């Protein structure tokens, strides 16, 4: 499973740096963060110079909402939203196909509105968008967006409906974004996670590509569903899908920023001040980045000095997270289904054991601590294994 970079605020230089360091990376461009449309090409060109490639997410999740940056794009609709929401959007799709052709995108991400309940109308609209896109983007690979509101993934019958509709869409793959339930960064509902696995596996079994956007390390089990790629970025708003992110409101409070360290073996992030606690307790080594993920961005934290006194900055934190997640994503896919499943369980058990030790010293990751989430993901993998395991193992 690959890691794509989900572009967020302040990520342009970071994307180029990471692509250079990794020998190539795919970035999902965010029109909200690069505007107007004419500025997209210079960035795409500069990505290509560092062996990178791009996808373009039109972010038409809620076209009626006012979003000051998205409005600056030529393709953004100024009227007749109803037609677009009902799939009658040939003109829009033509513009998007042209933008993607200019950028040299790997595929065209087709727009879709967020849906809170799957019904026949939605299935038909998705089909109409796919059909129209096939006519205007004849030679391009198409990824149809599936944008799910928070309740959809709680109901496995709705997931099955999506899979059955997807059978009939003439596209190469899908781009899934899903709102989390109860507004938590890490999802504490095993069924929700299991249903996301089912959705990905069901669509993969149709022979279509699947990219899950706005993801984070909790989505590593998606390797078990043969997911092609997950996409993550720097700030949390590009690591989980939040619909309000695509609307400009008067009360956009500036967020309080803290520098975090992602401990990949514990699947948890910690404020650097908690690394100081570990340093004092003599267990900082437990949190050090494993050799295979070691990197220049976080090395300074484990050089002997008090972590918070080092030059570890927010940008390093983001790059470290994405560097580790990229390696974890690639390592998550094994040569057989059972190896992949066993490695997921092993990873979760290891994380739980390490976190127990850290919690004993009162070192916790607050809302980014994976302690309770280990059980959630274990249960989700178990459910998935029972429901899809035999088929996935045969088709691996």
């Amino acid at each position, binding site marked *: 499973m690959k890691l794509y970079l989900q572009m967020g605020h302040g990520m342009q230089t970071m994307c180029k740096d990471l692509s250079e360091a990794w020998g190539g990376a795919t970035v999902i461009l965010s029109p909200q963060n690069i505007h107007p449309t004419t500025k997209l090409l210079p960035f795409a060109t500069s990505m290509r110079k560092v062996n990178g490639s791009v996808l373009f997410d039109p972010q038409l999740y809620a076209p009626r909402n006012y979003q000051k940056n998205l409005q600056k794009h030529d393709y953004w609709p100024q009227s007749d939203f109803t037609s677009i929401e009902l799939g009658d959007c040939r003109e829009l799709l033509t513009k998007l196909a042209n933008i993607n052709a200019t950028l040299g995108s790997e595929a065209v991400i087709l727009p879709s509105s967020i849906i809170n309940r799957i019904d026949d109308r939605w299935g038909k609209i998705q089909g109409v968008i796919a059909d129209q896109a096939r006519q205007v983007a004849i030679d391009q690979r198409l990824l149809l967006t599936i944008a799910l509101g928070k309740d959809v993934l709680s109901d496995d019958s709705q997931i*099955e409906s999506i899979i*059955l509709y997807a059978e009939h869409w003439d596209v190469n793959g899908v781009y899934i974004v899903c709102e989390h339930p109860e507004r938590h960064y890490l999802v504490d509902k095993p069924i929700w996670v299991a249903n996301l696995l089912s959705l990905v596996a069901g669509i993969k079994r149709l022979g279509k590509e699947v990219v899950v956007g706005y993801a984070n390390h909790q989505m590593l089990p998606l390797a078990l569903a043969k997911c092609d790629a997950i996409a993550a970025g720097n700030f949390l708003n590009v690591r989980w899908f939040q619909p309000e992110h695509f609307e400009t409101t008067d009360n956009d409070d500036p967020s309080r920023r803290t520098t975090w360290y992602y401990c990949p073996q514990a699947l948890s992030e910690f404020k650097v001040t908690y690394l100081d606690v570990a340093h004092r307790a003599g267990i900082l080594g437990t949190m050090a980045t494993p050799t295979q993920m070691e990197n220049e961005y976080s090395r300074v934290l484990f050089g002997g000095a008090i972590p918070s006194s080092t030059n570890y900055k927010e940008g390093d934190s983001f790059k470290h997270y994405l560097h580790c997640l990229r390696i974890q994503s690639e390592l998550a896919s094994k040569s057989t289904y059972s190896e992949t499943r066993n490695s997921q369980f092993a990873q979760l058990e290891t994380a739980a054991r390490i976190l127990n030790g850290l919690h004993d010293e009162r070192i916790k990751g607050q809302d980014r601590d994976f302690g309770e989430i280990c059980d959630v993901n274990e249960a989700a993998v178990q459910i998935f294994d029972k429901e899809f395991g035999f088929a996935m193992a045969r088709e691996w």
Partner: protein
Amino acid sequence: MRDFKELEAELSNMVQIARGGQKVVYSATHPTYGSVVVKLFFKTDARSQREIDISADSDFDCVPKIHETGHVTYIGSDTLYVIEQRVEGEELRKRLDRGERFTLKKAVDFLEQGLSFIKELEDKNIVHRDIKPENIIVSTDSKIYFLDFGIARILGVPSLTKTEALVGPHTPGYAAPEQFNNLKSDIDSRADLFSIGVVTYECLSGKNPFREGATSHLDILQRTETITPVSFQIAGDTQQQFMGLLSSLMGKFPSRRPKDANQALNWLSAAKSTLQYEEAKQ
């Protein structure tokens, strides 16, 4: 139109073996066809006609052959009759009711025949929709025959069931959820894969996993949508591959089942290499 008595006169050893609301069925000996079954349909509705058409037009290996169809006057009414091959054997339901349980080898053989039949149906765009022990005859040489295309669906032709009907035609405990929920666009051969999985499971365990303990028809449907049949150890299924395949066939959603009968047959073929038949011990 000739009278039923004339037809009767051509036949010998005629014995009524079943009578329902739609038809009466006799066993008999025909001078040309030999051992036959004669069916008289009280009402020649579209469904009966489709059943006959499917059986007559399709040369299925495991469906009794139709020798002759026509109309006779039966109790004063124009009545459709069908003379078809009589399979020497016994209804699977009767064998199960007597407490017979399949060995692993027998279950594998049964499933293989069933999947091959579904593959033949797929080739003709037909979904049987009523695979159950009552519609299966096990012949004296262990070959299985499938009966009753009464609620079969030919994909791509107008449905005989009302689209707005809340519940589609089905037998509770054997029909897949998408079938009884009348989700017509979702119906394909995977509904038959579900049913053959349930029947095979019942042949091994003696229990229908959705009917067992159910209090009503609706209860069975709810169980079919919610219960995952218990996986149990079958002697000789060393790596649980056969049980894994049955569980996959019985997946509550089509997306969790094999994509088609051919894939299921391939999976069965792969599972067979892990099985150890211990007939003497079973």
